């Protein structure tokens, strides 16, 4: 769907990235890491200083307008609807612009306005809406013509929990019908729920691209198992555990999931004693990112430093 080949632009440095059809890709990274630049390169609003970008097989800068309803772009803070129009007026103009058939248009509009919950303010002007309401309407404006490729820059800004959930549900349905989505977000729970792949940018470099599980096993492989036992405390001497604590009949084990699987540990415990309750906690995306940016930062920078040494 989108191909970046050794792209340089502003802070982005030598980005090569392939976005496959029919997937939702989450673009994450700190503010200023280059997420929006990447989105703008993908839709042809910026041209790369060097390297190539191909969107739907074509150079997006030259073909921007020709994508028509194939590509839809939403950048938080850049209005899609005219401020002085009412919401419904704005959507009618979109219908005229994209030549959507009338009954199809109203079917989609009614569905989106109901699910994103802005139907009640459709006769208000866009400028009179609250941030959250406006974002809902603008998101719907990006979705109304059912594009093949959807580029979303921070779609969660201003959305409450219901809004986020509705958006998540809608995007998932669209993905099933074949839509490709590239989205940036700071809402890690949402990215985790929605995105099949994650691209992690750090100061303009693509430091990771793959599934969340891969990210975890690479940067945060420590799982925590908590088990309540009925019986004696088993012997862990031979296990490669990071640490363990015993509190009454409850044990808490931390271990590197790259070295030993939860199943192996559980098997060993069950061989020695009875277990009433067990839970395994993997670090969530948010804590991985915090770890990467904070204390665990050295790992990222070490790998960069290695490169420089070479």
């Amino acid at each position, binding site marked *: 769907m989108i191909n970046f080949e050794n792209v340089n632009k*502003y802070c982005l440095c030598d980005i090569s990235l392939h976005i496959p059809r029919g997937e939702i890709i989450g673009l994450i990274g700190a503010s200023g890491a280059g997420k929006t630049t990447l989105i*703008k390169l993908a*839709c*042809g*609003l*910026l*041209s790369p200083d060097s390297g190539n970008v191909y969107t739907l097989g074509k150079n997006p*800068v030259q073909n*921007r*307008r020709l*994508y*028509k*309803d194939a*590509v839809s*772009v939403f*950048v938080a*803070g*850049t*209005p*899609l609807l*005219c*401020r*002085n*129009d009412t919401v419904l*007026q704005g959507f*009618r*103009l979109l219908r*005229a*612009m*994209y*030549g959507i058939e009338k009954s199809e248009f109203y079917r989609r509009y009614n569905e989106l306005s109901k699910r994103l919950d802005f139907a009640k303010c459709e006769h208000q002007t866009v400028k009179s809406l609250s941030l959250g309401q406006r974002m809902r309407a603008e998101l719907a404006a990006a979705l109304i013509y059912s594009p093949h490729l959807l580029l979303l820059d921070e779609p969660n800004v201003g959305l409450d929990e219901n809004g986020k959930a509705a958006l998540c549900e809608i995007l998932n349905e669209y993905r099933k019908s074949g839509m490709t989505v590239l989205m940036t977000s700071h809402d890690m729970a949402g990215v985790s729920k929605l995105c099949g792949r994650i691209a992690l940018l750090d100061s303009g470099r693509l430091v990771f691209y793959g599934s969340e599980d891969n990210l975890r096993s690479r940067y945060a492989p420590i799982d925590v198992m908590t088990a309540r036992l009925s019986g004696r405390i088993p012997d862990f001497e031979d296990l490669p555990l990071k640490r363990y604590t015993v509190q009454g009949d409850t044990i808490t084990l931390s271990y590197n999931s790259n070295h030993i699987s939860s199943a192996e540990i559980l098997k060993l415990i069950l061989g020695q004693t009875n277990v009433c309750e067990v839970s395994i906690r993997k670090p969530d995306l948010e804590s991985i990112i915090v770890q990467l940016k904070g204390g665990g930062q050295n790992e990222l920078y070490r790998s960069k430093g290695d490169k420089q040494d070479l």
Partner: protein
Amino acid sequence: MTLSPYIAYAKKCFLGRSAYRFDHFIGILSTCLQFFIFWEIYRALYGNNTEIDGITMSMVTTNFVLSMGLGAVFSPDDYFLPNKIWDGSIATEFLRPISFKGRMIAENLGNALFSLIFRFVPVLIIAAVTVGVSAPASPVMLLLFILSAGLGFGVLWSISFAVQMTSFWLVNIWSLITIKNVFVNVLSGSMIPLWFMPDWMSGVLGLTPFSSIYFTPVQIYLGQLSYGEIAFKCGVQLVWIAVIYLIGDLLWKKGQRKLVVQGG
């Protein structure tokens, strides 16, 4: 290419204007006031004379009514592009499947049509009833006047288009637009009829696009020009439209490239 989105935008602007009735009545009032002030000044200047240099008071009156009335119609939104550059929505416009320039023309025409029906016509009627306006020289001249007025709108639109395009680089072009409006108002004959300009000055003005905005249609209306002269002056209007539009279009293309390379 289909016209329907452009018609939708023109319609939106037309209907949008009708929402602000108070503004609209004040607009009629302001054009009338402007007209009567200038009319009074020239009546005082004329004193007991019926004509000066072959120009009768009734011709002067007609010039004011027509050029000020057309001025109310010819009001392209000078901030169409600057506003979009300010709020960042220019990025959205670049991604739309319809032509930005086409949309700009459509919105301006929607506005102009509204002003023509609800501002030019009432002002014309008020002026005709109170001080009297000359009838067109002949029905043919009336038709040619309409044609030439349309071309005059084209000239003014191209000027506004080209000036707006500088906002890609200058961002805030309020002062530039103000200067443009002063030039248009003073040099087009809508404040001082070009008949009264000294010869050298009307010669210079003949070389600028400004005199072809209002003054050419007015001269045609009054029957001051022969068919040959009309053809020549309309040709001049067309040349100005083409030249200024091409300059604006060059800036438009360069501006787009600038945004894509440097961001906006």
